[in-house]
Structure formats: structure tokens, C-alpha cells
């Protein structure tokens, strides 16, 4: 098999592993994420443990990568060229933090949740009952979660790109 195909399979497999891990960790639940951020209220520290465990395992991989000249299926390691802590980074992180606090959802959760009564469940409405009748506690909330996920991909990305012309051109 060519490396190009291996790269695709790796992406599919690691994406699946990521989504499965997210489900198993309990962090697919926006309520728990908001509970973690609710330091001054009903604080739920579990996300901190999840983050520490995930970072530790991931760090082992990055340490291993330092002893490798190149990735297994790619010519070089792709790391961000930008090293400076600039205004854009801080502003972007702050805006993200506000949206994260409001919803308890980050891009990973948006995407992994699509099947949890989000976009897919709603677009193929009658399929929901077939998949799991208890899947959608509130149809409208779920629809909106799906729409918000779309907003991430469709509105957010190009909007930010217009502020950062150097990173890309618009996809359409």
C-alpha cells in the first residue's frame, strides 16, 4: 500500500480512536465541561484529570517523535511555524473561551456529537427513531447543536480566514 493511502487510513483510525476515547471519557457531555469551568459554583474537576491523562500519553508520543527522523508515512513532521505569542493568539483564545464557556462545546465535541442527535439525527429525522428512540431529549436543542456545528465549519473558519489572509483562501 502506498504511503498516501496509509496516511488516510491513519487519519480515519486515529479520528475514530479520538472520538471513541472522548465518548468513553465522559467528556462528550457539555454539561460536564461547563461544570469544570464553573469554578465558583458547582465545580466538577473531572475534565482536569482527563486533560492530564491525555496530555501525558500524548507527550510520550511527542518524545518518541524526537528520536525519529520522519513520521512513518510522511516525509516530515508538520509543526506550526509561528512561535511568537502574539495578539491574535490571545484574542482568538479569549473568543473561543467565551463560546466554550457558553456552550460547553469545543470543535471536537461538535463533530463527535453530530451523531448524538445533532445534524445527522435531525436531517434524517425519521432515522433517529430507528437508531435510538431515547437519543433526542429535545429536538430543537439538538437541531441547534447541529447548526452550531455547521456554524463552526461554515461561518467561523472563513470569517477568521478573512482576518488571516495568509493562512488560506476561501474553500468555495
Amino acid at each position: 500500500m502506498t504511503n498516501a493511502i496509509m496516511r488516510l487510513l491513519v487519519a480515519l483510525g486515529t479520528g475514530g480512536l479520538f472520538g471513541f476515547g472522548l465518548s468513553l471519557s465522559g467528556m462528550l457531555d457539555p454539561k460536564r465541561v461547563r461544570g469544570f469551568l464553573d469554578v465558583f459554583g458547582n465545580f466538577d474537576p473531572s475534565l482536569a484529570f482527563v486533560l492530564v491523562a491525555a496530555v501525558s500519553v500524548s507527550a510520550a508520543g511527542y518524545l518518541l517523535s524526537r528520536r525519529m527522523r520522519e513520521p512513518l508515512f510522511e516525509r516530515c513532521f508538520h509543526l506550526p511555524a509561528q512561535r511568537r505569542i502574539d495578539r491574535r493568539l490571545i484574542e482568538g483564545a479569549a473568543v473561543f473561551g467565551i463560546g466554550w464557556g457558553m456552550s460547553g462545546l469545543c470543535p471536537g465535541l461538535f463533530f463527535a456529537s453530530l451523531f448524538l442527535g445533532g445534524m445527522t439525527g435531525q436531517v434524517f429525522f425519521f432515522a433517529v427513531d430507528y437508531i435510538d428512540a431515547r437519543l433526542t431529549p429535545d429536538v430543537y436543542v439538538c437541531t441547534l447543536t447541529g447548526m452550531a456545528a455547521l456554524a463552526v465549519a461554515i461561518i467561523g473558519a472563513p470569517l477568521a480566514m478573512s482576518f488571516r489572509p495568509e493562512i488560506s483562501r476561501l474553500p468555495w
Partner: protein
Amino acid sequence: MLFSYVHSLIGSALIGLASALYFVLDGRIAGISGIISGALKPPHEDRLRNAAFLFGLFLGPILYRMSAGGWPSAHYGGRLSLLALAGALVGFGTRLGSGCTSGHGVCGLARRSPRSMAAVAVFLAAGVVTVAAMNRLGL
């Protein structure tokens, strides 16, 4: 209760393993916001790989359902208008700040990137303040 902690720990380790493997095998950082925008723009090979990752991510909860017999629990709440606004803020902020909880949080902290450490500190602080403010305002 202990059982759920064990699950949570294994799940977290798998998240870390996934981001480690994506870097060691494909040489890429497993940051979901970057992967979403990468799936929308050329070149074609990158677009395909990013889309494959997202498809896997999307399948994750289904794999969980197949092995655990139930969907992972998730509670969505709050006003719908706020949720929609939050979606746009998350999308905009993560692109402007070049990363989210996975890219800056898991991968960035793991490789001890100063930029990521700063970003994580800022979005954690912003999230804490936002939740506190919303609680105070009764939203």
C-alpha cells in the same frame, strides 16, 4: 462510581494515544479546529486526510455505542440563541487563535509549546469568567 473513573481514565488515555499516533505516523497535530478548516480547503490530499479524520471522529460515539450498548451521555442546555452564538464564537476564536482544546490543549501542552500554554491559560480563564457571568445573570 470507581468504574466510571476507570472508564474516564482509559478514554482520556485513548485521546492522548490518538493524538500521539497521528503525529508519529502522519506527522500532523491532531487539532480538531485545524482539521475542520483543513477539510474545507485545498490541497486535495490534505482535504481528504482531514475529512477522513473527521469521519473517524464522527464514528467514535457509534463505536462506543456498539461496544457499550448505549450512547455516551450528553446534556445540552441553555438558550438556543446563545448556543448558536457560542458555535460562531468557537469557530471564529479557534481559527483566529490557531487551535482549540485538542490542538492547544492536548497536543500543544504535550509538546510544551509556549504558544499553546498561553492559549490554554487564556481560554480557560475566559471560559471560567463566562460561566460565572452567565450564572450570575441567570442565563
